[in-house]
Each structure stands twice: as structure tokens, then as C-alpha cells.
């Protein structure tokens, strides 16, 4: 062991993310910068690696350190784990060196017994105590796959072991394989004092992005769930409100939140996605990470950060993957177009593609409309074989019921039609007669006939600006025209061979892509 197995995340942890885990490192960084974060400690990734080889011996060896960590949480919060009158509950979360959102397990509200529930009822309310305990017992049963024991320390131990084990869950293994991450590591575990978004009307949970991760606009963006806990927001099973709702409900807390998100963005030099909880009008930040973003946003945000002096030109280009640029050059529904159109229905994306037309709910009417030359969207409760003719004339298909294997989903994919299925009862009636756009990639139906468009290296200002930067940074300058040798394609092999031949300038149909390849090849930093 090169470090202590259990490290307090009090702003003084002074260990890198590959020891503390990504989440633990973020918490420590926020504490160091004076942001409001509930006290926490982490069990390091080194323990996570050892646990995979020798579970029993490893957990025994570190248990006294875990107990010491709990004593510190108790002292900091002035609460006691497992008993009243002011009981401490904790969350137990995974935290690998590289963030793997949603891939591993999280347990909230841990530390319940009958006495603890009574004490919490006296402190908050009977409903709050009961709701929290229900959340705990359901999640524990699901993740640990047995009923929760009455002893909070047994709960804690089993939860920590489950999180360590979840590193090898099939979905986590598949995620690492897909993203080319190392399987041989392990996860850290973060144990953090709970704060409660479900305690009263001035409470809730949400996630805020320091800038819009879809359009790349320089506006805060996010979701807010009054009276909820963090897992409700992530689960997608509850209807959340836009973050603007928090601004009208608790303007002071909102300003504090946005200011925290902006300062995290400056500290990390990247756009952040911050999970937060508000407990009785007090703001708490739970974790922060670089925001997942669309290709459009990747380009716009990198250019904004460059303008504001947060990153340099080389870093700007590193933030943009060639796949981002390639995606932007294909026709697609641009995020700003999509976000500006009213959302009429959401369901499962069942057939990829985007299609617009007038919604018809009867096959005969759909066929007649198509015969008149109209673009048709077929909306049905569900489809069956006698709907085929209607599906054939339709450009997009929407159903109220059914999942990814339903008739509508299977046949839409077979016909190459954009499809969204399982949108819920009443959708056929509410869409009938409207001109709508079916987004079979996002699983949405939006109002109006939305046009697809593509960016181009010649005409899109953002890509021209990037190309100008690339010509200053890249060892190979690529131009759209000029008296230089011609690069037929922008593949790595062609770019490498041009550089090996000593060319410093070439003409290319995709200058930006050629230079991004050259920068990657030469490892410019």
C-alpha cells in the first residue's frame, strides 16, 4: 500500500484522481475551495483493486480505518451513526478514476434502524423519516440483493462490498470495453454524510450545467426536482422541472448555485455538470464532473473557453474529437432547432432517423393523404400487420404503447422509418392533425416541420475559426485551396505520409479534419 486506505475528503486529501477516484477528487477539490459539500471520506481505488482479489481479507484489514472515518464524519456533523437523538445517515457511492456515469452502484440514506427512524421523525417529520427509510430499504434490497439488516454497521459494510463488486458488473465491464478503459483497476468508494432534498417544501435535488451542453450556448442549464433526492433526478422516472423553476422559487439559493457552478468551471477549465441538493433552503454540492456534451456544444464551448482565456489554442483543439467534426458535417437536427420547438411527446427511440409530416391516426386516412402528396406521420396506440400499408406511406411512426421489441419498433427498423414508441396514452389524440417532427434518435416528437442541416468547413463560422487555430498549431497546415500538394483523404495514413514527405502545407477537401489528424499524430501539447 502506497497510501492510507481511507482518506478524509476535507480539502486536504492531496492525492490524485487515480487514488481518490474521480468523485472523491472532485469532492476534495470543492471542499478546498470553500464550496458547501457534505463531509465525506473515500476508500481508495487501491483498496478496490485488492478487494477484487481478496474480498474478505481486504475488508477486514481496512475496517478499523472505515470506523475511524465514520467517527470523523460524526464529529464534523455533530450527529451519530446508528442512533439518535441526531442520527447520521450516509450515502455510499462508487468513484472510479475515470467517471463512468450510472455504471456502478449507489446507496443513499444508509444507517437506518427503528430507533433511527423515530429520531428522524422527531427532527423532521414522520413522512420524511418514512420516505427516507423506504428509499433505503428498496435500494438496499435491489443492490445488495437481500433485505437490509437492522444493524447500520452491517449495512455499511455490505454496501461498501457491493460497490466494490459492481466494478465487475456486466454493464460496467461493457462500458469500459466500449470506451477503451482499463479493466484491471478498481473503484474507490465515497462515504458521505446525507443531506435531504425530501425533508420539506424548501428542499429538493437537481443537476446544473455551467453552460448549455446541448446547444453550447453560454447559459446555465439544468433540472430541478422539488422534494426529491438525487437518484430521482437521474432515474428519468419522475418529471423534473427546468432549473429556471428554482430561480423563481429560491432566487438566493439559485444565485449561489450558479456562482458555484461558474467557479467550478474556472477551477477545472471546463464546463461542469454539478449534482446538488437543497435542504431547507441550504445549498449542498454533491459532485462535479466535466459535462457530457453534443458535438455542436463541444466545438462552441471549447471556443468560448479559449476566448475567456481558460484554455490555450492547443487545448482547444484537443477538446474536439475528429468524430465530433465528422458528425457535424452530416445533416442532423441541430440542438438549437430541436430545443426551440415545443416537445409534444417522449418515448423510446425505436427507429433511428428524423422525419416530419402531418400526424394521422387512421391507416386509410394516412394512405389517402400520402396519395395527395402529403408527408405523413402515422400515430397509433400500437401497430399490427394490417397497419403495414399505413407504415409504408409514413415517413415516421409513433405509438402509445409498446417497447423496443414491439411490432411498430421491429417493422419501423425493417422499413428504415424514424420511430418513437411507448409515448403513453392519449398521444394519438393530442397529435392528430398536427405537423410534427419525429426524432427517432432522441425518442421525441416535437411541434412543426424541423429542418435538418449540416455544418460545413467553408461556411460555418465555428469551424472556420477552428481551422484558423489549427493552422497556427498543426505541424501540417491544410488549406481548402492554394498551390500546394493535394491530400486525397484525411486518414491518418495519408496525413502521416504527407508529413513524412516533408510537406508543411497541403490542399484538402476537409482541412480541419486533416489538421486534427496531424495534431494527434504529432502529439502537440
Amino acid at each position: 500500500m502506497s497510501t492510507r486506505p481511507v482518506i478524509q475528503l476535507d480539502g486536504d486529501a492531496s492525492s490524485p484522481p487515480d487514488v481518490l477516484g474521480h468523485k472523491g477528487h472532485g469532492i476534495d477539490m470543492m471542499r478546498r475551495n470553500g464550496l458547501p459539500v457534505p463531509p465525506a471520506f473515500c476508500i481508495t481505488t487501491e483498496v478496490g483493486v485488492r478487494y477484487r482479489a481478496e474480498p474478505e481479507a481486504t475488508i477486514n484489514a481496512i475496517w478499523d480505518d472505515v470506523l475511524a472515518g465514520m467517527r470523523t464524519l460524526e464529529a464534523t456533523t455533530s450527529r451519530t451513526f446508528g442512533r439518535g437523538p441526531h442520527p447520521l445517515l450516509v450515502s455510499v457511492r462508487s468513484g472510479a478514476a475515470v467517471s463512468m456515469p450510472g455504471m456502478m452502484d449507489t446507496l443513499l440514506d444508509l444507517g437506518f434502524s427503528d430507533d433511527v427512524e423515530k429520531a428522524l421523525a422527531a427532527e423532521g417529520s414522520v413522512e420524511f423519516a418514512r420516505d427516507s427509510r423506504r428509499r433505503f430499504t428498496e435500494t438496499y434490497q435491489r443492490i445488495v440483493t437481500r433485505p437490509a439488516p437492522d444493524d447500520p454497521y452491517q449495512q455499511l459494510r455490505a454496501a461498501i462490498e457491493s460497490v466494490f463488486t459492481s466494478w465487475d458488473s456486466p454493464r460496467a465491464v461493457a462500458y469500459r470495453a466500449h470506451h477503451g478503459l482499463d479493466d484491471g483497476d478498481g473503484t474507490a468508494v465515497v462515504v458521505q454524510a446525507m443531506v435531504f432534498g425530501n425533508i420539506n417544501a424548501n428542499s429538493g435535488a437537481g443537476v446544473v450545467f455551467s453552460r448549455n451542453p446541448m446547444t453550447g450556448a453560454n447559459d446555465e442549464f439544468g433540472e430541478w426536482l422539488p422534494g426529491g433526492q438525487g437518484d430521482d433526478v437521474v432515474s428519468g422516472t419522475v418529471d423534473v422541472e427546468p432549473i429556471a423553476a428554482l430561480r423563481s422559487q429560491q432566487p438566493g439559493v439559485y444565485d449561489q448555485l450558479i456562482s458555484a457552478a461558474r467557479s467550478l468551471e474556472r477551477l477545472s477549465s471546463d464546463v461542469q455538470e454539478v449534482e446538488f441538493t437543497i435542504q431547507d433552503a441550504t445549498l449542498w454540492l454533491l459532485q462535479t464532473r466535466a459535462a457530457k456534451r453534443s458535438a455542436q456544444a463541444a466545438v462552441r464551448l471549447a471556443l468560448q473557453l479559449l476566448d475567456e482565456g481558460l484554455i490555450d489554442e492547443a487545448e482547444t483543439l484537443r477538446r474536439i474529437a475528429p468524430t465530433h467534426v465528422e458528425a457535424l458535417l452530416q445533416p442532423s437536427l441541430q440542438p438549437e432547432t430541436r430545443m426551440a420547438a415545443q416537445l409534444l411527446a417522449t418515448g423510446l427511440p425505436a427507429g433511428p432517423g428524423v422525419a416530419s409530416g402531418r400526424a394521422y391516426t387512421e391507416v386509410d386516412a394516412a394512405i389517402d393523404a400520402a396519395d395527395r402528396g402529403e408527408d405523413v406521420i402515422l400515430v397509433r396506440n400500437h401497430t399490427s400487420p394490417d397497419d403495414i400499408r399505413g407504415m409504408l406511406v409514413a415517413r415516421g411512426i409513433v405509438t402509445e404503447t409498446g417497447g423496443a421489441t414491439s411490432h411498430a419498433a421491429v417493422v419501423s427498423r425493417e422499413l428504415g422509418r424514424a420511430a418513437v414508441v411507448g409515448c403513453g396514452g392519449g398521444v394519438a389524440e393530442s397529435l392528430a392533425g398536427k405537423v410534427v417532427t419525429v426524432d427517432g434518435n432522441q425518442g421525441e416528437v416535437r411541434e412543426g416541420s424541423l429542418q435538418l442541416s449540416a455544418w460545413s468547413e467553408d461556411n460555418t463560422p465555428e469551424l472556420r475559426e477552428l481551422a484558423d487555430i489549427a493552422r497556427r498549431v498543426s505541424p501540417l497546415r491544410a488549406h481548402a485551396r492554394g498551390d500546394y500538394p493535394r491530400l486525397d483523404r484525411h486518414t491518418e495514413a495519408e496525413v502521416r505520409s504527407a508529413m513524412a514527405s516533408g510537406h508543411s502545407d497541403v490542399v484538402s477537401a476537409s482541412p480541419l479534419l486533416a489538421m486534427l489528424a496531424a495534431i494527434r499524430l504529432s502529439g502537440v501539447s
Partner: protein
Amino acid sequence: MSELGVLQAVRLKGRVSRGDLAATLGEDRFDVIDRLVSSGLLLDGPTLRLSPEGRRRLEGLLADERSHVDTAAVLAAYGEFRSVNAEFKALVTDWQLKDGQPNTHEDAGYDAAVLARLDDVHRRVTPTIAAVATQLPRLSRYSVKLQTALDNIHAGQTMWLARPLIDSYHTVWFELHEELILATGRTRETDDA
């Protein structure tokens, strides 16, 4: 009986050409079709479809057919069908999508593994159809049509797995599902989609 067979086939297909109708019935019943057209039960054109009177006539014939069956036996067969239905739908989806993306059919091993599951599904559904055909002999035709689709798939014509408008395995399967839902007196709204 042949009138019921023709009307039900037209209902299941929605709109169908005379040629496709003959193919799904396994015989040319132009005599019956012409009679149904002249009596106004079928609407003629490039494709045939049911008139409102035809739909009412079909519902009467189906109700009459249902009144002679042992409902418990049909329900038992339907239960067995549902147990294999989920697996069939999952394998069709796995055929179309690989890792959430459209299957490019470049991975022969993957495709072969999915199609092997179809053989198992076929083994399981065949006795179920035989059982329900003791009550509704008309439905034994579905076994023949599934076998034809399976033979075509085995011969390398994989469009016979899920392609609409032809009697692919998925098309026949789904029509059989509709028949079983009808025969048990249910509707799809009360069932799964």
C-alpha cells in the same frame, strides 16, 4: 370455412393484392373472392380490403367459430405462446440491432448465434400451434407458413425473418398472435403490445 379464411386473411393484411392473398392462403380462391366482392363484403381495386359489411360478417363468423372451441384448451395454448413470444421478439430485435446500433451483418458469428435461437423458438412454437389447431383447424396453416419462412432463412434469404409485406417469420408470427388474442376473446389493449 373458406369464406372465413379469406375474410380473416384480408383483415390481417389490411390491404392485399389477389396474388399475395392466394400466397398466404396457399390456394387460389378466386371463386370465393369474386363472390365476396359481388356481395359487397370485399372492396376491389389494386388491393382488396374489407367493407364495413365485410368486417361485421367476419366478426359473426369468428364468434361462431369461437363458440365451438374448448376455451380452456385455447387459453393454455395461448399461455405457452406468450412464454416463447418474448424470446422471439427479443431475437428479432437482436437481429436488427447490435450494441444499440443497426446491425450491419458484418459479424457472421453474431448473426449465426441469433438465427440459432430461431430454431429453438420454432421447436417450441410448433406443438403449441398443433394443440390450438385441435380446436381451430384453420390455424394449422400458420405452422406451414412459419416452416416456409424458416426454410427460406436457412437457405440464406434472411429477409424472411422480419420483412413486412411478405409472409416472413415475424409477419406470420404476429398474425398468429392476433388470432390467439381473438380466440381467447381478448383485445390487444388488454394484452401486451
